[in-house]
């Protein structure tokens, strides 16, 4: 079986640390010595060299995704430089999807044009909310009024796919606030929308604020209501779900890189803390940008640790991941002794069975983890 190969490039820089974020990212104050934005592209190039040694040049990347952090904190030229390294040393497949995440306030018409020219095909804007008081709780600094401009510039620059990211369930966000955000998002006429429920992750500033009682913890019923509102609004606007938290105008607008994760294809994660999965082996890099740079400067692999995915784990992962896709889960993946649960799940309205595939209903999507627990 041939798997697709993707590349993830982690850019661990942000102008401010958002209170809810537990991703591996650093403001300039937090970064410390030994890792600078200026030298970052050069450092990642060294890891690309390692990938070339491991992967050869027979199998080009079909998708590339720059995430973070805020990739657009780096000059467009640096992002293009890394992309060029990937293309020149490992290879890019014809028609490859090349995405970068971006903050609406960290792009200009010129930077977007430079990215497009340099080979980026897709851009995903971290919009999160259209409501100022919600953005404040999230510590997002951008002006929501600037978002339509950013989207327009991206279109003008020639990006094939424009996506927006939304977050629902922020403390203090009313149902009407969320409706406003949905209307705003739909009015941008994006090709793709991701909408994620806010998770209060341990160790974040937001978790501390919740613990101190300054803001309420997200409420599951509220999150469920908002998911249903989103699904209805997007479907009405012609965007269909293809993964639990992702909607696209048509099949071509689906984020192929995202789907690659859910299908357990192969990908190489570049950058500090990035996770990779190639041929049944998962590994992850050292977390701090300085440690990452030191390893590569010394000619060493930045790998921190790895695991081998055995058959049982693979089964569990496939049920966990593939059930989230609208294409569904191949029923033969479900372990024999759990297959009987499927009829019950269908009776309870949580799944549909199309031929040999199990697909979550809307209620089922909201209870996806419970469904998965019953299937493995």
């Amino acid at each position, binding site marked *: 079986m041939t798997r697709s190969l993707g590349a993830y490039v982690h850019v661990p820089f942000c102008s401010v640390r958002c209170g809810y974020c537990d991703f591996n990212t650093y403001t300039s104050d937090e970064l410390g010595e030994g890792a600078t934005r200026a030298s970052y592209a050069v450092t990642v190039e060294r890891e690309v060299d390692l990938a070339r040694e491991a992967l050869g040049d027979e199998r080009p990347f079909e998708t590339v995704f720059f995430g973070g952090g805020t990739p657009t904190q780096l000059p467009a030229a640096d992002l293009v430089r890394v992309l060029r390294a990937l293309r020149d040393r490992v290879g890019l497949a014809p028609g490859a999807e090349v995405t970068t995440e971006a903050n609406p306030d960290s792009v200009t018409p010129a930077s977007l044009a430079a990215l497009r020219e340099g080979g980026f095909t897709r851009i995903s804007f971290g919009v999160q909310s259209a409501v100022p008081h919600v953005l404040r709780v999230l510590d997002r600094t951008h002006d929501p009024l600037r978002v339509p401009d950013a989207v327009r510039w991206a279109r003008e620059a020639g990006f094939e796919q424009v996506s927006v990211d939304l977050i629902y369930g922020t403390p203090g966000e009313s149902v009407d606030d969320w409706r406003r955000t949905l209307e705003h998002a739909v009015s941008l006429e994006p090709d793709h929308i991701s909408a994620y429920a806010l*998770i209060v992750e341990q160790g974040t500033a937001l978790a501390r604020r919740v613990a101190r009682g300054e803001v309420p913890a997200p409420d*599951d019923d509220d999150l469920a209501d908002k*998911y249903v509102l989103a699904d209805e609004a997007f479907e009405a606007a012609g965007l269909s779900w293809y993964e639990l938290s992702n909607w696209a105008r048509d099949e071509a607008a689906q984020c192929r890189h995202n789907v690659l994760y859910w299908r357990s294809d192969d990908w190489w994660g570049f950058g500090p803390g990035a996770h990779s999965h190639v041929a049944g082996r998962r590994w992850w890099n050292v977390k701090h940008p300085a440690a990452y740079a030191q390893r590569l400067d010394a000619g060493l692999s930045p790998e921190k640790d790895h695991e081998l995915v055995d058959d049982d784990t693979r089964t569990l992962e496939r049920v966990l991941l593939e059930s989230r896709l609208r294409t569904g889960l191949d029923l033969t993946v479900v372990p024999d002794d759990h297959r009987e649960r499927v009829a019950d799940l269908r009776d309870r309205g949580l799944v549909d069975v199309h031929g040999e595939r199990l697909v979550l209903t809307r209620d089922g999507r909201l209870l996806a983890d419970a469904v998965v627990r019953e299937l493995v």
Partner: protein
Amino acid sequence: MGDIMSASSAPQVPQPGSTDPAVLRNFCIIAHIDHGKSTLADRMLQITGVVDERAARAQYLDRMDIERERGITIKSQAVRMPFTKSSGDDTGTNYVLNMIDTPGHVDFTYEVSRSLEACEGAILLVDAAQGIEAQTLANLYLAMEADLHIIPVLNKIDLPGAQPEKYAEEIAGIIGGDPDEVLRVSAKTGEGVEALLNAIVEQVPPPVGDPDAPARALIFDSVYDTYRGVVTYVRVVDGKLSHRDKIKMMSTNAVHEMLEVGVISPEPVKSPDLGVGEVGYLITGVKEVRQSRVGDTVTSNAKPAKEPLGGYKTPNPMVFSGLYPIDGDDFATLREALDKLQLNDAALVYEPESSGALGFGFRIGFLGLLHLEIIRERLEREFNLDLIATAPNVVYRLEMEDGREITVTNPSEYPNDGKIAKVFEPITRATILTPTDYIGTIMELCQSRRGQLLGMDYLSEDRVEIKYTLPMGEIMFDFFDALKSRTKGYASLDYEPTGEQAADLVKVDILLQGEVVDAFSAIVHRDSAYAYGVALAGKLKELIPRQQFEVPIQAAIGARIIARENIKAIRKDVLAKCYGGDISRKRKLLEKQKEGKKRMKMVGRVEVPQEAFIAALSTGDATPK
């Protein structure tokens, strides 16, 4: 300390079996948890040369892990220590000290009283920074009733917070005598311990018995050992126990071969006999401690004594709780585990029972709440069982209208049909020692638990002893916690069962989805039934996670619903986020979720977490104030 070590290994140390009672001193140490009994015992073992410093394991006498972790002594033991007098007229004379370790907790009062019977003297050990505690006081009274000579000792005098003058006065006030006679030691540094050993020899009377009478020995402890069977600890009162004898247990007339006699010093040492006043062990090949019960009298089968030593009784369980394996397949393992624990615990009683909600398990009788906790913890730890414990309850005696009498050890068996003429509940006499600042709050707490004030005695200007009659059922749940939290931890509690009283009690049932869940039934006073029902239903609503369907919770007395709550169906159970290709993290979350589910018990279709069954314990605040 070196000269003492060499002195104690001087020749002509009296040997077991041929020790003149005149050089024997049998004593125990009465102390509260944390007041340093084990440290003092260790220090004595070192000074007498029985254990050298390097070999000294912290808290040598406490064997079981749980004991060491909780810093409490469950099983008592006895150590024989040769000691050469190092002060006074008889300096240089060899003595033998038998230190008998006693359990410190209220649940084991009977065992304490038997250990005391084996001694002539007791060290009253009190933390010089804290003063005497209620349990210590209770044990002290037991010792005084048993006519033991009391040597008062303040420990931890090296602590910066120590107030030896103040507490010496307090102790002198309780036992009589002069505050200056209270010895001061630091078990930690060893200061004053040698003087204490000399004082034991000088003050504790030697044992008195008739060497020519038929043998009589008191069993004060009985321990199961995997390799040796039951090891029985005895104190010989009259005559002699020889390793060639056959012995007889006087309560049952059962006769056993004697396989071995000896003393502990600190490892078992065989000896040909044990004579008058001596303390040691015997091994008979018996496999269960029930066949060699604490308090029983051992005599020689060939030449039996006519009268047993007094005071033997079978300990009655005071507290009952249902223990159920979360996984029904573990029932057999639970049975085997209980059988094994019973080998070493004559007070543990159990019988199989079945619960509509929990399946098959056991109703287990305990001496008290600590006993319950220890057993439960040992079952989970040593036998790897996941257990649900139902809320503990006391034993009720019911007189029915038709003249029948029923004993209820499980609330779910409490009859609902109203044909009950009278209900009797066990009551206790509780003693609370507290700084005077908290008298008001303590009285308020005791009133809310249906207590009746018996009296108050000032131990000193700022410490008082308060006595209450309290229903045992009212102090089982969280009384001690409530007492501690209302007095910032300063008050201490002791209680002893004193009989029963008629009471207006009702059974409160809990229904999940309209079905009574027997494991949640509780018997409470009529006046607090409503508040109890509301509180427990509310508590369960918090503790039972939302299910994929709605779960109504009701509290009821008979057919009358007194409280209701509703657990709404869960609508969201999914993590929407993808952690940038970090699939391992997502998988681990799922595995954690599945692990959490394993700790749930299916009651009908409802998943109920383990803690919910014990939740009734912490609803004490529902009691009307």
